């Protein structure tokens, strides 16, 4: 039932956006001139393409994010059974977090967290 509802919500959101787009295309005015379809940017004509090489700093943070995001995926099932496992859960996660924090400390030490 939940999956049916999820599917319903996806369809509903797509239909909502689509209906609003169709409505606005239907009631809004349509004019054409050459200047209008230019990129706005900041008023002056755009130079060249936008799809160029970009700053690598963001890429570094994305890689770090991957490491920690997968950690969250591992920790969520663990979190639900902490109360049943008791002490065992604490000892187990201490090892896990130790290696994780080691990774963060390494990145920090190698200046991966500095914005250059």
């Amino acid at each position, binding site marked *: 039932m*939940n999956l*049916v*509802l999820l599917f*319903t*919500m*996806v369809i*509903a*959101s*797509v239909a*909502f*956006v689509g209906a*609003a*787009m169709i*409505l*606005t295309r239907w*009631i*809004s*005015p*349509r*004019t054409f001139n050459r200047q*209008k*379809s*230019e*990129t*706005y*940017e*900041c008023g002056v004509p*755009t130079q060249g*393409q*936008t*799809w160029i090489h*970009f*700053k690598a700093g*963001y890429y570094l*943070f*994305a890689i*770090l*994010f991957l490491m*920690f*995001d997968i950690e*969250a995926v591992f*920790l*969520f099932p663990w*979190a*639900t059974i*902490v*109360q*049943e496992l*008791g002490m065992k*859960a*604490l000892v187990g*996660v201490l090892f896990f*977090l130790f290696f*994780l*924090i080691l990774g*963060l400390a390494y990145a*920090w030490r190698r200046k991966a*967290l*500095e*914005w250059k």
Partner: protein
Amino acid sequence: MFDFTSMTTAIDSYLNSVLPSSAATLIECAIIAVCVIVAYLVFAIIMIFMERKVCAAFQCRLGPMRVGPWGLLQVFADVFKMLIKEIISIKNSDKILYNLAPFLVLMSSIITFSCLPFDKGLQVLDFNIGAFFIMAASSFGILGILLAGWSSNNKFSMIGAVRSGGQMISYELSMGLSILTLVVLSGTMQISEIVETQTKGWFIFTGHVPAFIAFIIYIIAGNAETNRAPFDLPEAESELTAGFHTEYSGMNFGFFYVAEFMNMFIIAGIASTLFLGGWAPLYVPGLEGFNSVMECIPGFVWFLAKTFFVIWLLMWIRWTFPRLRIDQVLALEWKYLVPIGLINLLIMTICVVMGWTF
């Protein structure tokens, strides 16, 4: 407490008695879809109006006053204005991605919105991995923002989108860690069960110090997730025109605007669900009379009161602090919030294992 499941089962059994079961399911799905979309729009309108009035109050102004009494109809006028604006297609843009972006942003926002528990039984999506699902569905919206900036062939949009990507994936971590801390305390990920547990004391009280730290981390990370000041670099007006949605006109822009406001509502709604008890009334052990008086207030009033309290906190932060730089934003996340969040998770585990919770 009034249980809304009795109402929904009544509708369900009535429809099943007059129609074949497949048609009944179809009609139920349609009813639910319409209800969620209408609720979404109503809350969006309330939020936009509230933002304007709160902002005006913080700056010693009156805010919109002309359209309708106290400017109540201003938002409706704005929505109508947006509807009659022409949608411009940009030269040299990536047409498919350009038009796909608002769909993705709205889809993530609406799916997350339907996970919120407004009252007992008044919740659309209730997975047994609810808290995790909410994180997954809300992180989906980053894609839309990245596509919007990437596809519109505008350097400022591009910078805004990349900044937004870097910021939102970073802050998702500490958001996940603070939700994880609460899951350790509750022992379940299902949203309805989490709220059910809190009828015997809200988590911010039963989890005391670690839960409070997690709440503060969550508020900071949630503020960054919604791209609002002091974390509004992706759409910094003074540097990037309007950031990733510069090239969008009319209702296309309106979708981003609505989704941004509703993401704030969702962040506040999740905060009130996980930390402040959702629809659970205030419970003080030992004061039976007080508890029974509190139970007379309906659940959705509790939920909305807590949610709007958190929204007001977020607006207060928005109109008080100046904008951060991108290096400061990332340093705050990686050097402060993530280590604090990890240690806080350990403290919460120790508290739960030792039984030091209330």
